[in-house]
């Protein structure tokens, strides 16, 4: 039953087999072309894609530059902390892993989810830090359950460390994860999402210099992101160290003085010769260490909602009436404008009437006959009412501005606010109103519309101390350009005015008397050193308004602010500064705090042991609240 092929059949079969052969050959040729396109023509593209597939570049964060004080003592350094992070590509069930991690470490599961969600657009191989600065217990809990916690890793990273905790917190600032807005900016080139950058203070102002260069580790991974072997490692470059003008002993004295006083406020101590800042504080403060490894939500919310505003840098952003500390400026303006001489005398009877209105002196009985020196020493209001009235507001404004009040100090810290010394022009422009001569009377004793920042007060007193050079307060003494620390010249002064030495001397004599002549600042006296100063007690609100407001709301603090500005020694001063006690009741209370700073400074200069931190009792603070003081509309005191 064999069916051998007939010739016709064979011809047809042969033709059809040939057709199939040609078809297959043609398809194979097409396949070869296809492979040629992928393997030869587009090889580079696919090779790169394969490289990206198998390699992962992980950042090695660079430690930031160390901050030193003027004597080389470490102010801000770095220390290693452990972060617990998630590598999303290594895990399939992220919510489950986060749930387990929250369970093991006690972290808030919802917060973990939010962190991951916030960064979902980043490449899935990049670790997302879930728990920053993990405690030993959290690390142990993670290690114990790491087999279940797929995709969770522990990484050791350098974190900023502030050894003195909250000391000079507002000056140093703090660091934090780069914000989306910062990522867009050119000056953050090279930073990536998740990079730690300065967010306030020196950390922010000098971020670029302090930041260093992050390194990178390239590793080979398999298809589930597990590391197979390292490929290359580029170590990070530590940020350059920076030497600040801060003197850690003065800084400590400032902090100790404030702590003993129990008041909030601000202080700036500087070298009046060049504006280098020796000590700086703003109270209440925060602990920048809390930010160093990432601040948790609760702490951040607490800092932000605190009615005392601990994040506010009062030294640069707080604006307060200067009170009687303004009087030397008015006196000097009178002298320089030729309105008065140092011997110009006014009789103080406890008050005087200007433009039909009575203005009281803080001393009810009056000071009697006072000349300029005595008026400063005793802080006689009537004397300066009179001089101010003779000067007019615009000449007061001119001289206050030349001495740095009502203008920016241009310290290199971010977000400095500007105070106000009114003028007729200012009132016309801002209020569209004429200036009334009666308003000048309050201005003459630093009340009314006058408002100043503590840092501008520091510039003011430094300018008085150095004879008219409005120095620029600054913080950097030396920088490292790669070959060790090199001194940085101080920034040029903002302005310079030639004050007649004899006239300036009269003011200085008055301020010397404040401290050493039985004046209002006697508590700042340091035996054997000629300290000059001026107290100021600034009303927060007029006495009449205060009585009403206080009755309404007992929780709001309406107590007066206390100021003390100082420089020393009287001739060729080397230190100047301001202590501002928020609701500190009396200027002399600020002088008590300043005393510890000055005593420390001179002890150090004389090579004597530094005085121990004062106790609260040592300061002999005056808590007598003088708000029962007569009903007079003004009366900035002592």
């Amino acid at each position, binding site marked *: 039953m*064999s*069916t051998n092929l007939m010739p016709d059949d064979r011809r047809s079969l042969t033709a*059809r087999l040939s057709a199939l052969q040609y078809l*297959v050959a043609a398809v*194979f040729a097409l396949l070869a072309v296809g492979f040629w396109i992928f393997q030869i023509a587009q*090889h580079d593209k696919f090779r790169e894609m394969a490289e990206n597939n198998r390699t992962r570049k992980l950042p090695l964060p660079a430690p930031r530059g160390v901050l030193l004080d003027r004597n080389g003592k470490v102010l801000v350094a770095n220390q290693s902390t452990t972060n617990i992070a998630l590598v999303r590509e290594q895990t399939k069930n992220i919510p489950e892993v986060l749930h387990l991690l929250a369970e093991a470490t006690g972290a808030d599961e919802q917060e973990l989810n939010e962190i991951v969600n916030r960064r979902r657009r980043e490449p899935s191989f990049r670790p997302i830090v879930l728990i920053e600065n993990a405690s030993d217990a959290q690390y142990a809990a993670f290690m114990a359950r790491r087999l279940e916690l797929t995709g969770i890793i522990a990484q050791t990273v350098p974190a900023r460390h502030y050894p003195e905790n909250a000391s000079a917190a507002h000056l140093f600032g703090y660091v934090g994860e780069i914000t989306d807005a910062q990522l867009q900016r050119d000056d953050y080139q090279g930073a990536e999402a998740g990079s730690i950058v300065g967010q306030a203070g020196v950390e922010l102002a000098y971020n670029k210099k302090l930041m260093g260069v992050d390194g990178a580790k390239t590793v080979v991974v398999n*298809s589930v992101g597990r590391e197979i072997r390292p490929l290359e490692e580029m170590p990070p470059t530590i940020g350059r160290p920076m030497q600040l003008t801060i003197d850690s002993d003065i800084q400590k004295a400032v902090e100790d003085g404030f702590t003993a006083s129990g008041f909030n406020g601000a202080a700036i101590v500087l070298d009046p010769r060049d504006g280098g800042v020796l000590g700086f504080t703003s109270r209440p403060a925060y602990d920048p260490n809390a930010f160093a490894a990432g601040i948790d939500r609760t702490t951040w919310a607490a800092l932000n909602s605190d009615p005392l505003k601990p994040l506010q840098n009062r030294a640069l952003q707080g604006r307060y009436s200067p009170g009687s500390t303004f009087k030397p400026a008015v006196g000097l303006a009178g002298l320089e404008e030729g309105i008065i001489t140092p011997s110009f005398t006014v009789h103080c009877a406890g008050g005087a009437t200007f433009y039909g209105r009575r203005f009281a002196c803080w001393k009810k009985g009056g000071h009697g006959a006072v000349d300029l020196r005595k008026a400063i020493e005793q802080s006689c209001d009537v004397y300066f009412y009179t001089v101010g009235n003779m000067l007019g507001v615009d000449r007061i404004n001119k001289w206050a501005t030349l001495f740095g009040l009502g203008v920016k100090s241009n310290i290199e810290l971010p977000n400095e606010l500007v105070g106000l010394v009114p003028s007729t022009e200012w009132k016309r422009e801002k209020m569209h109103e004429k200036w009334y001569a009666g308003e000048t009377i309050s201005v003459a004793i630093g009340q009314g519309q006058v408002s100043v920042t503590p840092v501008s007060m520091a510039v003011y007193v430094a300018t008085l101390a150095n004879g008219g050079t409005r120095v620029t307060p600054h913080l950097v003494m030396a920088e490292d350009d790669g070959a060790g620390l090199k001194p940085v010249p101080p920034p040029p002064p903002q302005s310079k005015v030639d004050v007649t030495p004899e006239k300036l001397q009269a003011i200085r004599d008055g301020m010397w008397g404040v401290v050493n002549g039985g004046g209002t600042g006697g508590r700042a006296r340091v035996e054997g050193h000629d300290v000059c100063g001026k107290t100021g007690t600034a009303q927060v609100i007029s006495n009449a308004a205060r009585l009403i407001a206080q009755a309404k709301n007992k929780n709001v603090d309406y107590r007066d602010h206390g100021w003390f500005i100082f420089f020393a020694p009287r001739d060729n001063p080397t230190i100047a500064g301001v202590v501002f006690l928020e609701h500190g009741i009396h200027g002399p209370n600020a002088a008590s705090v300043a005393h510890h700073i000055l005593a420390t400074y001179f002890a150090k200069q004389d090579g004597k042991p530094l005085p121990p931190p004062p106790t609260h009792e040592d300061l002999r603070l005056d808590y007598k609240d003088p708000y029962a003081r007569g009903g007079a509309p003004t009366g900035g005191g002592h």
Partner: protein
Amino acid sequence: MLERRLYFHIDWLLLGAIVILGAIGIAMVNSATYMTTPAGGHTSGMVWTQLYAFGIGLVALLVFLVIDYRVFAEHSLLIYGALIVLLVFVLVKGQTQMGAQRWIPIGPFHLQPSEFGRISVALMLAMFFGENRRGAKNTSDLLMGGVLMLIPLLLIAKQPDLGTAVTLLPVFVGIAFLAGLRMRLLGIIAIACLPLGLFGYKFALKDYQKQRIQTFLNPEQDPRGAGYQTIQARITVGSGGLTGLGYLKGTQAQYKFLPVAQNDFVFSVLAEEQGFIGVLTALGLYLFVILRSFEAARLAKDRLGAYLVGGIISGFAFQVIYNVTMSAGLAPVKGITLPLMSYGGSSLIASLASFGLVLNVRMRRFTN
């Protein structure tokens, strides 16, 4: 049984090409299953399975060479019946792996009956069309042949193993074409299949099957999910370049960016590690095997032999072409393996056995 005379008619060139392809396959399976670890790497056990299967396959090839193909053809109905029984058995009692019920455990082995579908269907159809005195040119014969092919196809598709099932289609089309089926009729069938296909896509395909087709059309829409294999296949092939990255050095293969590459993507591994040169070599060998086999059909002494070889090689060629196209990410991912190379004992044994029949037909071209 094997007369000395016949020994001289064995197509040693074809046999040599087949053995070389099988050997390349073993090497590539080894590379695709190589266990890369931080500490180095080691061979996985799968390469041994493949090696054993190759040995068994050569024995099967010998068996299918030595016994006259006409004897197999005469028993084709029995073989076909046995296949149907096995396929039904698999559906009822078979072993389930990776969501499909395909295997019958026999001792240490797992038999996959569907892999033997092509030989059985080719024998059955060759017998049906080749021994038909009328020449098998009318429509009812075509329909009858189509039914013979469809029964195992549907049984296999039900496992579900659509990839293996569709490889029966070219076997039927190839034999029908060689049997003189008018092209017009084929065209009509093709056009008729189009609405049937659309209907099937809408109602018969499972979601994952639909997704594969959608993903192929636009792999970038889901690069981490279903489009992953297509993209990774292209990267794997493209990164090979002209000369390849070297054996066991393909990063895509070794770091397992192509999942279970030893099954469907063994050719991608070859492309990455051996480059365009390796691809041309392998394609050349496959083309040689196919064209040479068609020559065997041309030389066959009877219609039965010609159709048998034509059916086997049509199925083989279809599978090679589809798999290679898929390996480059140019066709939707279907479970169609590369014959002679992909990992899988049943597949390798069945392929070698089928070439036993091809050699058989050519060897016996002068006998009566």
